[in-house]
């Protein structure tokens, strides 16, 4: 079991990543709180020694995505809110950024994950394939299709 100091460090280091992944998968703040509690409790109870920060970060991403999927599948999960509500937590975001976020969030789930991991976290297709436990070629295909969908949604100037 990890110490309180380790917990505090992990929360400071990875909570933004967990928050963004939650935003991609979930539709309300209460579910995000649940995921935070699940992920960081799992981290404290987990005795696996991480090789480096990258290994640890990949662990957080994988555990968060799995926790979100489990929560979505959960029979007891009944609280759902429309897509609009997601962005009520980001009132200060400028319109063009809001537009980009909405375009990404409107993608099917399998595309949202690879877009986030590739464009934001900077992972390569082989790295994403390991994190998501998918075939590398599948990841390449997902990236290509998601790029096309974003282009359609946001228009040609998005590439500029």
């Amino acid at each position, binding site marked *: 079991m990890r110490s309180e100091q380790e917990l505090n460090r992990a929360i400071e280091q990875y*909570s933004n990543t967990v*928050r963004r992944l939650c935003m991609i998968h979930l539709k309300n703040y209460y579910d995000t709180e649940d995921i935070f509690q699940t992920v960081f409790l799992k981290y404290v109870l987990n005795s696996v020694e991480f090789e480096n920060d990258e290994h640890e970060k990949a662990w957080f991403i994988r555990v968060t995505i799995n926790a979100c999927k489990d929560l979505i599948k959960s029979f007891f999960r009944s609280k759902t809110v429309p897509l609009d509500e997601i962005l009520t937590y*980001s009132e200060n975001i400028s319109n*063009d*950024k809001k537009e980009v976020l909405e375009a990404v969030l409107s993608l099917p789930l399998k595309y949202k994950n690879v877009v986030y991991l590739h464009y934001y976290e900077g992972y390569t297709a082989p790295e994403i394939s390991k994190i998501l436990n998918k075939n590398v070629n599948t990841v390449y295909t997902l990236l290509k299709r998601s*790029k096309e969908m974003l282009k359609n949604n946001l228009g040609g100037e998005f590439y500029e």
Partner: protein
Amino acid sequence: MSEKIKSAFDEIYAENELKQNTREYVLKKIEKRHKKSNTIKYVYSLAVCLFIFIIGGYKIYFNTTSIISIDINPSLELEINCFDKVISVEGYNDDGEILANNIDVHFDNYNDAIYEIINSSEISNSISENGLLSIGVVEMDTKQCEKILYDIEKYTENQNNMYCYSMKESDVLEAHKIGLSCGKYHAFLQLQSLNPNITTDEVSQMTMREIRDLIESLSNNNDIEFENGQGNGQCNGRGNGQGNGQCNGQGKMQGKNFNN
């Protein structure tokens, strides 16, 4: 494109309240787990102690520290634990087995058990028909043996046709190996010292009175003084591989014989 997505996602971050709530939740959970694990450890330790206590207690309670052999014609043996309780009753001939099945002296104090056995119809009838009752105590725990012997001596000293003696533990193994009770084996050794041709089968069929009478008649025939089970001289002189056992058995018998 990459930059635009990056800058858009940069606007999303975990609120301080969310981080603080998570921290508090996880720490509370850990504390609960600690308490639970301490309780489990405590319960587990208690269960282990209880288990050891039960197993240890069982082993101590059912460990034989003395054997009392009661012979007249029914021959039976009582195994006694360190708490002076009877933990086993075993018959060593047909009559003995019947008697062992008919009486219930398990977990009784040995004094009560001996009293009940002696007053059973089988044994009291044999005594009234001039049977001879021998009560032997096997020395496994010397202090307990002395105490039991003292109690039995007090009981038999005023009784006709009863005597008591002590035996060595090594004799028990020999006795059981040839299928005799300790008392019968003790008498067999005496008899064998006078008549080497006597067999254990013959002795097992005889009552204690018959064995005692035979010992006395053989002693008289051989013109050797044999009174009340004494006879160190004979025993030592006859030593032919049986001498040690006979000698010890008879030696113990001296002074504890209340035969009339």
